[in-house]
């Protein structure tokens, strides 16, 4: 009884709120494993959010009543990915080819992407009469579980296993396959070598520039999907100014919290999701909301302190994270 009424809704809400973070984090892990610290996640998520919502919105206004929900979801995924990948491509060109400082470029991308996302969103809003949203029928494909009702009706396990929106399952599959890719595949080995010691990878015949570009662009695209997931599952598929309010920064923190491991991101994102909504569910009158909202960052700082205390090499960031590579002529 207690579990069903109190804990279960909290867990369900935590998973919904954690899923955008999961995409943001898995994408950023891919980028950072190749040695590129892309602080522009927030910007890429904005671009992804605007592009993804726009794709579904314009698809529906073109197709009218014959709009297919699955096609809308697929288009939203594709266009949000492209939006983030475009942002990450700018970042890659500036940091990998021109070897500019990664932190500065990442921050610039965060600001640029936020602006670009706002621009697209506002353009849609203004041109369509002050309000952008998709129809209720289409929304169900984004917000509701893809599983049949009888599976969801199983007590406790039903909602826990089958009661989430489709992006939760895509996110889990993505995190698991990312983990397998990084740790088991030949390309993953090369990618990790590039992030740890590009000179070693170069000497072993790995194309460092290509790996860095691909990891950053694909990672940026994956991160940006998180923005679309936030808009369509949490913000009610409506574009508004407030937008993502810091999801991207939380994802950057979550990467550190997860110790650069995609599987840790699975439970890490749920935990962060829970911390984000705790003020709604577990309100204590004498604690202001703002204190609740800093919890994810506090946890990240604590994890940073703990890992640096233990100084285990396994739990450190990729060794060349943040450093540009060029083969020195001697």
């Amino acid at each position, binding site marked *: 009884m207690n579990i069903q009424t109190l804990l279960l809704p909290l867990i369900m809400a935590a998973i919904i709120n954690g899923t955008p973070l999961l995409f943001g984090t898995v994408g950023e892990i891919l980028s950072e494993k190749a040695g590129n610290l892309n602080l522009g996640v927030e910007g890429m998520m904005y671009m992804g959010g605007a592009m993804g919502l726009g794709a579904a919105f314009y698809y529906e206004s073109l197709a009218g009543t014959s709009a297919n929900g699955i096609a809308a979801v697929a288009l939203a995924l594709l266009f949000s990915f492209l939006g983030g990948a475009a942002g990450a491509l700018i970042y890659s060109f500036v940091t990998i080819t021109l070897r500019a400082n990664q932190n500065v470029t990442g921050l610039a991308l965060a600001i640029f992407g936020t602006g670009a996302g706002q621009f697209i969103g506002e353009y849609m809003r203004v041109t369509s009469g002050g309000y952008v949203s998709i129809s209720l029928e289409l929304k169900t494909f984004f917000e509701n579980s893809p599983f049949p009702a009888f599976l969801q009706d199983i007590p406790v396990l039903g909602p826990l296993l089958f009661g989430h929106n489709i992006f939760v399952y895509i996110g889990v599959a993505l995190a698991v396959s990312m983990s397998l890719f990084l740790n088991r595949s030949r390309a993953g080995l090369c990618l990790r070598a590039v992030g740890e010691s590009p000179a070693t*990878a170069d000497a*072993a015949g790995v194309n460092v520039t290509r790996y860095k570009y691909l990891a950053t662009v694909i990672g940026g695209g994956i991160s940006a999907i998180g923005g679309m997931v936030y808009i369509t599952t949490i913000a009610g598929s409506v574009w508004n100014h407030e937008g993502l309010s810091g999801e991207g920064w939380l994802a950057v923190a979550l990467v550190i919290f997860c110790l650069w491991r995609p599987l840790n991101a699975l439970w890490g994102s749920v935990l962060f999701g829970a911390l984000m909504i705790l003020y709604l569910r577990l309100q204590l009158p004498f604690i202001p909301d703002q204190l609740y909202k800093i919890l994810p960052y506090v946890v990240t700082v604590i994890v940073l302190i703990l890992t640096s205390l233990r100084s285990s090499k396994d739990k450190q960031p990729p060794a060349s994270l943040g450093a540009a590579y060029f083969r020195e002529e001697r």
Partner: protein
Amino acid sequence: MEAVHAIELRHITKRFGKVVANDGIDLTLDRGEILSLLGENGSGKTTLMNMLSGIYFPDEGEILVQGKSVSIRSPKDAYENGIGMIHQHYKLVDVFTAAENIALGLHAKGRLDLKQVAAGIRKISDQYGFGIDPDKRIYNMSVSEKQTVEIIKVLYRGADILILDEPTAVLTPQETERLFTILRSMRDDGKAIVIITHKLHEVMSLSDRVSVLRKGKYIGTLATAQTSPQALTDMMVGRAVRLNIDRPEPMDPKPRLTVENLTVLDAEGVKRLDGATFTALGGEILGVAGIAGSGQRELLEAIAGLCPATGSVLFTPEGGAPTQLIGKTPMQIKQAGVAMAFVPEDRLGMGLVGGMGMTGNMMLRSWRKGRGAFVDRRDPNALALRVKEELEVVTPSVEFPVRRLSGGNVQKVLVGREIASAPSVLMSAYAVRGLDINTSYTIYHLMTEQKQKGVAVIFVGEDLDVLLELCDRILVLCGGQVSGIVDARHATKEEVGLLMTRTGGKEDGPHA
């Protein structure tokens, strides 16, 4: 000897800009032998071998592998010809296991099968008695294990011609002996091995033949059994060139620095400086000779308080009582009058701030002297102008960033500033590295001037001819130990050269 050589180099020449690193070198290597490549720093040993391993491409000449002319343009080409090189700086990813590191360069298709790689490593490991666990991570390994992984990596890729660049530089004597045993068993297995070294006793104990390079030129090849360390030293250093540096007799030399049993450990616990004992006198130039990395840097840094050391460094100022410098901060040591003009590989690295002008860099020494919160710019500015005038520093203005000055001018600024602080001990390392003859002589002259003022000058140098001409005494370091102190007026280049390559050879060094 076989008719077909494993490797034959014909008239190989390599230039870097105007510098000829290798000048028409001929060399042969056969299967089942260990060849030592002997030479001083900068004699072109590593450059020559890098052309076999695909790092450089020769400007002229021909490389024959198994009698066939080949073109080696990348490390991959080298592997295809069965050539593998173990570099001085290991190319390994720290957080990977041995197996992952070895799998990294294999461009095989299909699934990554680390188990299969690990099995292959175990096979090689058993064959030669390496005792390496393929699943151990590199950061958990000792230096010697890392080297072993590099060797296995090369063998795993099927190389049967191995080149090792100064493999014993980082090993303990026991580890060195183990490595030699392994190398001998690989030789008996029919592999061809080149070892680059400047340690004579290793040449004598390990190799079958020895080839000597000097200043980029091929001097000759001898069978190890038919030569002696003395003969090899002669070949390695060549004849002395007279330089004619003005060298007055020391005036009234008094002990200024008394160093006893000075020992420095590096981060890995290896002794970089091992029980150094000597006295530096005021009014003389004490030269420090040794092959690069023999402990010169550590010696100076320990005296200046920049790296932790054990032992005793007693500093006796003019007419004062001795004070212990070990345990004092660099600032305290500096205020006591010990100045260091250390010129590291990267000239700007430790002495100067590249983005600041001469005035700013002069201020680095005097920033504490300003009144209140503001620094005093007038005195440093005057000093900068004086240094510019006296040492003929070529710069548009004293505010011009020193980074954009030429190397010689940068060094003049550095040395000029140190001298201006009126030190009673002046230490300099490689003060003339990369400078033209004229500027070098300006620096030598400055050192001699300081010596005549009664300063104890410690001059770490590379060129033995210069050390013998400039210094009063020469302290020779070998493997972190003082292998001897000689009188520079009477010692010969061969004597110093021999001391440079003799580890722990204190017993019969000709003391001054």
